[in-house]
């Protein structure tokens, strides 16, 4: 089967993010970048499914030349080929979904797996838009609830199972208060939650092999997609600094303050 996965370039969550003084964005100087962690989980899941069912994993990223590093990273993890949608400038979730739709129509995968959201904008919309516009089934927040190291987990049904006939996919979703199992006709769109799997590290032989794997370039105009954002960011600001706490002399005062000042009990 053919699986399309995404690899958005995002700021490394370990780096310190600073908002520009004029509120137009974040300070990019000195930042490190990596694959969106949820997308990394999508890449890993794609690789595992292909290891089981055969086929290939195609990784796609949208952005300037710099996203090659993320594509190459996914290729080093084991993806078979990459599609680079060469676009610089602002892009909203509908623009992204529109571009991905065209890539899907071109690549004709059996399954699209993407992160449930990217850790920069935290929109959580692209997978849903994409499924809707393609007219495909969607299963969001694919997950496993147990720790990966437990015996219990080893005996569990995997969260993502493709039917023997390659016509359906069963997905265990993380929902409020528990897990829901859904079955989708293929082709389908699946988005990944945090606990689905633990992505592999890019191995050194993988890095070397990735050098000769193809990256195909596409441009939005060539795909016939108008990516003019319908959504604009008007201002960015850092969250307000936390105020210092107070110390209370005893429990009675604490209870009193919770009642009268915080009004939570």
């Amino acid at each position: 089967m053919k699986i399309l996965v995404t690899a958005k370039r995002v700021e490394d969550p370990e780096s310190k993010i600073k908002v520009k003084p004029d509120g137009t964005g974040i300070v990019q100087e000195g930042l490190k970048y990596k694959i969106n962690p949820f997308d990394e989980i999508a890449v890993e899941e794609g690789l595992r499914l292909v290891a089981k069912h055969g086929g290939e994993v195609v990784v796609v990223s949208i952005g300037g030349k710099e996203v090659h590093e993320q594509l190459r990273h996914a290729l080093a993890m084991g993806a078979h080929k990459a599609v680079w949608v060469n676009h610089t400038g602002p892009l909203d979730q509908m623009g992204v979904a529109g571009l991905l739709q065209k890539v899907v129509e071109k690549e004709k995968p059996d399954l699209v797996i993407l992160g449930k959201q990217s850790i920069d904008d935290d929109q959580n919309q692209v997978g849903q838009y994409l499924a809707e516009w393609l007219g495909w089934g969607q299963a969001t927040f694919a997950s496993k609830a147990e720790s990966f190291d437990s015996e219990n987990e080893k005996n569990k049904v995997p969260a993502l199972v493709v039917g023997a006939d390659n016509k359906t996919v069963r997905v265990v979703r993380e929902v409020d208060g528990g897990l829901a199992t859904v079955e989708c006709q293929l082709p389908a769109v699946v988005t990944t939650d945090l606990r689905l799997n633990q992505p592999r590290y890019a191995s050194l032989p993988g890095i070397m092999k990735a050098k000769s794997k193809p990256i195909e370039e596409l441009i939005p105009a060539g795909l016939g997609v108008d990516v003019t954002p319908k959504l604009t960011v008007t201002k960015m600001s850092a969250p307000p600094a936390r105020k210092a706490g107070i110390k209370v002399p005893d429990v009675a005062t604490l209870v009193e303050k919770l009642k009268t000042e915080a009004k939570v009990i």
Partner: protein
Amino acid sequence: MDFELPESHRILQASIREFCEKKVKPFAREWDAKEQFPHEVVRELGQLGVMGILVKEEYGGAGMDALAVAVAVEEIARYDGSLALTVASHNGLGTSHIRVFGNEEQRRKYLPKLATGEWLGAWGLTEPGSGSDAAGMKTTAVKKGDVWVLNGTKMFITQGTVGHVFVILALTDPPKRQKGITAFIVERGQKGFTQRPIHGKLGMRSSDTAELILENVEVPDSARLGEVGQGFIDTLKILDRGRITIGALAVGLARGALEESIRYSKERTAFGHPIADFQALRWMMADMKTETDAARLLVHRAAYLADHGRPYTREASMAKLFASEVAMRACNKAVQIHGGYGYTREFPVERYLRDAKLCEIGEGTSEIQRSIIARETFKTA
């Protein structure tokens, strides 16, 4: 000129960093305290290809270059000097001697298992009575019929206990001194071959070090590595490359010392200020940063020369000498910045300081490096 790492090396760096954050950083202190060799983590590094960085793909390695070794070792040393030493010595010494000077049969036999870390490689040059003065070695190999009989003792051998494959340097023609040295491959468990662990090291405590005793160890001529009498010349070439790696290890320790110092100095307050506000400490960290970057540039230059087939003996020594002395200064400052806490095992900087000292000693002392640099400089002057 381009000071950016190639894309493949940046991916390698990111991959190893993430691995170390999860699997090394939380445990390095305990391994050090218990002198515990982290077998499982070494096995996982093997799966990532880190134990066969320079080994060609056809022998199961990654087929990357000296710059990749430098990047990988620096990254690991940032978290754990001992583990970095394991990776450095395995890649740079034992495995490299077979990789560079082994015949096809020897390469096929050993490299695939060494490259995946299934077997660990060790390299036996130093003896109880000779280190940098390699020609003063006492170990002998005498040809008796079809076999060579090895006798002697090797000292401070990294991977000495956990290793499977040992490259042993021995005198085959004692009167010829350096020109009478030959290399042999000895495998663990061979009759007459004993490995005795050495405990109580100042630093690099979770790296495995041992004394090797060879008592009438018989090896076939097919275990001879390289030409008879060529062992010492080959050894010098292996050491040149190994020195780049020790330089990278020292850079990793220095960087760790700086990063930990920045973090601590922002949190710790004195006289109503974070101590990071005080100029005396800021200047220390300014020096640490400057020197660490300079050391890395020397290391990367030596790796560049090695990767482009140019002479690099002097440049490798310069990188190793400077980086190891930078690491000592940086780690010493880091302990000072951490004050009383820095003197305890609660913070990693005391471990970095103990680990850094090895870099001024192993694979040729600083004094030997200066001699090499002077010799090579006068040669061309």
